């Protein structure tokens, strides 16, 4: 396979190279806490850019990520845990024999996680895309909900609410960061192709897109399955990072968090989604000091645990009030430089 490299691709290559260098540097020089935050950022970047593809670029107001992330996480966890570990862990009911038999290495596990998610997305797209707008939102919200309930109620496969523990910790910054770079690159490639254009056309005016010969159902399904694939992979990385998963991780708060990220970053902007991830995930960590007692010099406020979330929600409201299209709007980082030149 020979990949043609164009002039403007050199810039991209340079960006990718510096990102890779950063990953190496961070892995070797930063403390574990920082590395873990970076890992979270990398995984949420994958999730945010892929969620942005269906929600921002294609304009289908879907609230599904928690469902696919959960599926990816469970598939990966079940493939990575050996039969012995599973047998030991399953406490509510004993596992089905086939569950014990599942086994794969990390790469295959992630691949299966993604594939399984996207196959499910394919099946789902037939009913889901019959409805539009807010109805789509509630159907997909329901899907995520159902997945979680299934995880709780099928202890023979998922170990119920106990979740799966002791998942081998394969994820590290090379994996998460590397896949994040791939994901951003791949998604930008989609966006800058006829498929991406068609997705945007569906978002702007579905009827007009049809009138241009676009098979809008196919385009929506592509976007949905691609999102689901990466969400599955992201879920797998998350499982192998946390080493422990359980159904309560995948509530709709998980989806809301992603939604906040992509809207803050600028709905429809892939680079905006990356920026949004850094701000929300990094920012939430940074704001931890709000939970602690504060010393204002003159007086010391008592610790107000939970204050962080209050401030977080206020910031969220203010950002939306003053930057209603999010930080990047629908532009990409590249467009900003273009404007600057003019």
């Amino acid at each position: 396979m020979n990949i043609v490299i164009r002039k403007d691709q050199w810039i991209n290559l340079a960006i990718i190279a510096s990102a890779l260098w950063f990953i190496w540097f961070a892995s070797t020089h930063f403390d574990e806490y920082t590395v873990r935050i970076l890992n979270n950022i990398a995984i949420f970047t994958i999730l945010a850019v892929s969620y942005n593809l269906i929600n921002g670029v294609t304009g289908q107001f879907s609230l599904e990520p928690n469902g696919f992330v959960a599926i990816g996480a469970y598939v990966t966890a079940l493939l990575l845990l050996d039969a012995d570990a599973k047998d030991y862990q399953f406490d509510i009911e004993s596992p089905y024999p086939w569950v014990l038999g599942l086994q794969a290495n990390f790469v295959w596990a992630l691949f299966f996680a993604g594939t399984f998610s996207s196959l499910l997305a394919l099946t789902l797209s037939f009913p889901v895309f019959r409805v539009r707008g807010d109805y789509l939102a509630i159907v997909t919200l329901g899907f995520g909900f159902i997945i979680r309930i299934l995880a709780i109620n099928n202890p023979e496969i998922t170990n119920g609410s106990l979740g799966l523990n002791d998942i081998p910790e394969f994820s590290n910054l090379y994996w998460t960061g590397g896949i994040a770079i791939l994901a951003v690159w791949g998604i930008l490639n989609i966006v800058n192709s006829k498929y991406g254009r068609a997705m945007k056309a569906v978002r702007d005016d579905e009827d007009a897109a049809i009138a241009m010969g676009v098979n809008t159902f196919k385009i929506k399904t592509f976007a949905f399955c691609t999102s689901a694939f990466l969400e599955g992979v992201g879920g797998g990385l998350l499982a192998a990072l946390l080493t422990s998963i359980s159904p309560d991780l995948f509530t709709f708060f998980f989806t809301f968090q992603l939604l906040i990220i992509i809207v803050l970053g600028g709905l429809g902007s892939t680079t905006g989604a990356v920026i949004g991830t850094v701000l929300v995930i990094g920012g939430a960590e940074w704001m931890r000091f709000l939970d602690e007692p504060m010393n204002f010099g003159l007086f010391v406020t008592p610790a107000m645990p939970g204050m962080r979330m209050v401030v977080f929600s206020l910031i969220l409201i203010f950002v939306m009030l003053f930057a209603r299209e999010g930080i990047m709007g629908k532009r990409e980082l590249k467009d900003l430089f273009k404007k600057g030149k003019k």
Partner: protein
Amino acid sequence: MILELKGVTKKFGGVTAINNTTFTVNSKEIYGLIGPNGAGKTTMFNIITGNYQATDGEVVFRSEKLNGLKPHTIVRKGIARTFQNIRLFKTMSVMDNVLIGFDFQANYTYFESIFRFPRFFGEEKRIRKRAIEILDYFGIAEFAEHKATDLSYGQQRKVEIARALATNPAMLLLDEPAAGMNPAETKELAHLIRTAREDFDLTVLLIEHDMKFVNQLCDKVLVLDYGKTIFEGKPSDAIKDKEVVAAYLGDFAHD
């Protein structure tokens, strides 16, 4: 003969919007569809393009029956349209708007676009070149990278027609293309449509209330009146037809 409608009827609930209408459009003809408001003209368009299904009757295009086909399939068979109110993709550039018209003509797969296979670059180059050609033809190439909705109304109309032409149609359906234009702009548009017919080898079916425009442009008109045909023939004859004057033109036509 390129398009033939045979006994097309469309009912909405109890309302009959089109009643047993038959007409044919010949190749390279500019065919006008006129009639009072609510006569069923737009509905007729929607039936031809597959947005609505006819309650009864047949639509035949290049000897192929279109009934039951999906709208996007019909476009690919060579029928493109514009809308009564301009409907451009508002967040996209003029160029991208036109490129959407090439969507089904670019030959690369989803997979190839993700991993940037050589074919992707080749195909993109090809359709971009053609898109520029079309924009150039309409004299709006300089706006290629502008957001489509930043253009003036007249220019947006042109983008919309350019976008439709990008689908490489044999037949173009225009729904009130001159609405909202002043007489000077209308005149320019008429000229543009006429030359485009030659240069793109088009058959045009259009709806318009501006009789001057219709007169200048159309080879033939069909006058619909609440579902039934009251006249078919030359526009210059239509103006004189008593029934047409009574139902549609009124005294106003004599300006």
